[in-house]
């Protein structure tokens, strides 16, 4: 007699999203920098901003910060990053 089990796991299949095309250049692009609010994150992102502006000629760098690293970004934070050509998320520690 075959044994039948009840599936105890999450059965929703996550579908992978196709990544957007890579940028061929950073020159003239709008770049978002997302600080997740971990101590030290701003040091890394300050340097990124400097490099993006001075070395790579980014047209604009927009700095956005999550209220806490422990939770998902609220919609208002995500909305501030709309219209960017690329976003860099900065971790820390």
């Amino acid at each position, binding site marked *: 007699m*075959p*044994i*039948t*089990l*009840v*599936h*105890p*796991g*999450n*059965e*929703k299949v*996550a579908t992978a999203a196709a990544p957007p095309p890579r940028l061929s250049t950073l020159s003239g692009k709008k770049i978002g920098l997302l600080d997740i*609010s971990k*101590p030290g994150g701003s040091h890394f992102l300050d340097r990124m901003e400097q490099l993006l502006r001075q070395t790579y000629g980014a047209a604009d760098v927009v700095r956005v910060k999550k*209220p*806490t*690293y*422990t*939770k*998902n970004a609220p919609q208002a934070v995500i909305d501030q990053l709309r219209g960017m050509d690329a976003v860099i998320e900065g971790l820390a*520690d």
Partner: protein
Amino acid sequence: MGEPTYLLSVPGYKPGKKALLVFFETDCPTCQLALPYLNSLDSNAVQVLGLSQDDETHTRAFVEQLNLKYPVNVDRGLKLTREFDPQSVPTMYLLDESGHVQSSLIGLDKAAMNTMAAALGQKTIAPLDDGTPAWKPGCGSRHLEPATQDGHSGAGDVSEESANGPLLRRIAEPASRITLRDDEDPFEYCIQKFGDALPVIPPTEAKVSAMVTASGLAAENVIARVPPVYGEATVEKIAANAVMAGCTPEMMRVLLPLVRAVCDENFNAHGVQATTHFAAPIIIINGPVRQELGFWCKQNVFSNVARANSTVGRALQLILLNLGGGRPDGIDMSALGNSAKFSCCIAENEEENPWEPFHVDRGLQRDQSALSLFAAEPPRGVSEHTAQKGAVVLKAVCQALATVWSYRICMNHEAIVVLCPEHAKTLARDGFTKQQVRQFLFENTGVPKRLYAEKDTGEGTQLVPYYREIMIQGEPCYQKFRSAESIHIVVTGGTAGKFSAVLGSWAVGPTGSQLVTYPISPK
């Protein structure tokens, strides 16, 4: 001016008397938190009338599960809902004796509920410190939900449209069935696919069905969505994990509020399950359920001593793994992990506790069974066998408290101090109340300033401008905690051995994980 005629269709409405009409949905977490408070309103002062926007079956299950004492009826065709037009649920309308709206309350708003109760000459009905939030918005009212193709409200529908729509559904499909080949070992299959690296009991249909029956709810009811991947914890899925953990069917009474608690946004399992820190949820059980279901609270309370503690703690972890996706070889990124992730469920030894039990501190009645969840570091032991005075016991505890998170961090962390019965007895004999214990620990836990040398960049040194300086035994120190309320006291364990423990927190407060306490329904 006469009463509005539509009120005559409210079942049980008595004209000429003040009334509180309460519109709610059975799957709304805010309704689930708010509605039980109304049990405390005296029916002589106001007639409370619950109006459900869901069907009879779900409404009756909701009333039974939350033990609602006032009349509750289904608002058929959402007729009254459309008359009153609440934008969200719960919405409560206080009607004067002539049936006209005097005031309304939206969502869970404890202060407003208590003000309303006071205006009706009633005591406080929603304690501010019982572990539920002071304020929480509700869900959109059903009559404003998008309709399905057949023109009916999308609520409760499992059609493709509602499943893919913007609203979270409350009924899911049944769990799929896995039929094993004759040559497959069900134990090996489960340990590889769904286990915690230890053998589990295969969740056969018969065993899971017995669990579902014991819950009194439909198998496909979605109790919560488990972070961080937000898998739907249906009653049936919870039951399957409970079977695997070795639970008995009556444990469903504890597991349903436990799943709600761990998915409470205040607990923030999203962060707890993904952090690189040690944090793991520990469960603290209080009240009569300890005796009813055999939760152990004596010697070896943190160990493998009783089926109730071990299996409920394990079931929670299996649910977090299998439905939440917080696998230790994947999303759970803890650098060293924590043995509590196998199972950690303690009960308070209320019989040896000289003070009120822990769940009373959290705002519940003593005879109410309850569970609390705290995201904790592993316990630090505190041995103190020769102290004659309670204050000397507490000074030993202070030294362990000073190392919570990291020894030079003096920010807003919290801790649970687990006092063994012998230490609690010494403290009570010296006249300490529980609040005095917390205050003493708060005032006497600090980190000596001499440990913060110049040019030292170690953890905690960069935050010194935010610290508060105090003197402890003549030595300048930075105060470890922000308030006495950061320190929670639990009395448990065996009556022999003067060993207590300190369990530090993860990040706390609204940006971290908050201690949550949920009631467990009576038998």
